[in-house]
Every structure is written in C-alpha cells, then in structure tokens.
C-alpha cells in the first residue's frame, strides 16, 4: 500500500514538473548546457514570484562575448517561431536582432519567446539574450502591463 502511495506521489510530482516548454528546440539551451559557463547567466523562476505578472514560468539565458552562441540560439529560436501565432522581429544585416514571438498555446498556457542579439549593434553589451515566458497573460496584457 505504502509502495503504491509513494509511486503515485512520484508520478504526480513528475507530471507536475513537465511544462508547456517541453518540445521546443530552445529547451536544450536551458539546463546543464550553460550552467557552468562563466560568461552565461541562466535564470529560472516559477510560481509565486511571477504571480503579479500572471506568468507561471520565466526562463532566460544571457551569453556574453560569444557571437557564435548567438547564431546557435538564433537558429533554435527561428525554428521554434515557425508556428508562432504572433510575432514582431527586427533584423540587422540579414541577422535577427530581436524577435518577440507568441507561440501556439500549450496546456492552456500562453507561451512567449523573446530574443535579442546585441552582438549586432555597436556600443551595446556584447551579449545575446533569450527569454521564454509562459502563463495565462495575453500578449496585449503583457504590453499594457509594461508599456
């Protein structure tokens, strides 16, 4: 009986750990890939800290001094953004400078990817940033909230 309860609890906890982010190419950027990189900052926030923004997940990755990494990230973002329901992008010299994408909702949650490649601009911190956000808030609400 106890064994069954423990197994059930494990299954529930594992199921709860799966987010709508699963299945995206950018998922491979988060986790162990950059966590030990001295030029990278990875942020993962879930739950109560994001309550005010009606978001349930915030992930970001900033990689400095590595334009090559920017290209890799750009590729993954572009691939994930193919089926975006809404997008705003800006290009410099044929490369993606910024992209804000609203992806197809998954598991009843809105999903957003923000990408910015500062390597393409002079006088800016040489870094590339990718942000993944997930929650109930709509793009309009996000824009209204932060304008």
């Amino acid at each position: 009986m106890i064994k069954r309860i423990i197994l059930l609890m494990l299954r529930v906890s594992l199921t709860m750990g799966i987010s709508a982010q699963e299945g995206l190419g950018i998922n491979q950027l988060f986790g162990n890939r950059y966590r030990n990189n001295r030029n990278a900052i990875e942020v993962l926030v879930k739950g109560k800290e994001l309550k005010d923004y009606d978001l349930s997940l915030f992930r970001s990755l900033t990689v400095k001094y590595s334009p090559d990494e920017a290209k890799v990230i750009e590729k993954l973002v572009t691939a994930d953004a193919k089926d975006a329901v809404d997008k705003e992008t800006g290009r410099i010299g044929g490369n993606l400078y910024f992209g804000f994408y609203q992806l197809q909702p998954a598991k009843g949650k809105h999903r957003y990817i923000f990408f910015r490649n500062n390597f393409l601009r002079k006088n800016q911190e040489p870094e590339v940033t990718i942000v993944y956000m997930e929650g109930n808030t709509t793009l309009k609400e996000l824009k209204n909230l932060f304008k």
Partner: protein
Amino acid sequence: MILNIDKNRTYGLSQEEIDCIIEKYFDGETTDKEEKLLLRFLATPQAEDKRYNEIKAVMGFVAVGKKIYEKKIEKRSKKILSIRPYRWIAAAVIGCIIGTAGWKIVDNQQNVCVAYIGGEKCTDPQLVMSHVRQSLHSNDYEECKGTVDNQLNDIFSTISNDNDYDKNE
C-alpha cells in the same frame, strides 16, 4: 481468598459418584461443573485418602499449567496492545514524513527562483529577480534599476522604438 468449605460435606455426592467423576476426568469427559465439584471435594478432609493423590497431582499439574498458559496469553495480549499503538504512531510518523516530503517536492517544483551566474548557483529571490529584470533589459542596465515593470517595458520599447533595423511584423 479464603474458601468457606464444609469439611464434612462431599457436596451431595457419594463416594461412588466422586470415583465416577474422577474416572471421567481421566477420560477427559467431565463437564466444568463436575470439575469444580471435584476440585472442591479434593479440598475436603475426605480427600486426604492416598487414593486421591493421583487425581490431586494431575489436577494440580493441570491447574499450574492453566495458570502459566493464562499468564502467557495475558502477556501476549499485553504485548499486542503495547505494540499496536507504536505501529500506529510509526505509521503516522511515516505518513507525515512522506506527506511533508511530497509537499516539499511539489512546492519546489511549483516555486522555483534560481539563477546560475557565471557558473555559480544563486537562490536569493531578490538577486534572481534582479537578473530577471536584467534579462529583459536591452541597453543600459543602470537606467532600469527600479522595477520589473520598467525592465519589461524595455522589451516593448525595443520592439516599438528601435529604428536601427529592418522591422517585420
């Protein structure tokens, strides 16, 4: 307890009846009532005769055995009674531990606030949230030291105000 026994009585039983009961006793056919009568009789002076020594010895042996057996049963039931509450307490404690651990796991999965800064893990919510702001900031971090609102606003200002690129919508 002192038994009030009439020394001259054989409890309404004749010598033959007593002998018959003893015989039945050895055959294992006596009733409880008959055994009680026999016991009472064996406590009377009439039972001092040598021929009752055997029945006295057997009944005494059985009585002692019964007492030992009853004591064992009593001890065992006491043990069972004393073990059961411990079992319940142990089960409750295990339940609490599992519940707390489960709650912690679920809580940890639902509420995460962590940053890996230059290879070092940071779990200070204020510092992590400041990096959330930084992640969303485009030009000058010093400009937007204030609120998350300002920081996130920067994303949208980047989208709407930057003219240094070819914009696609």
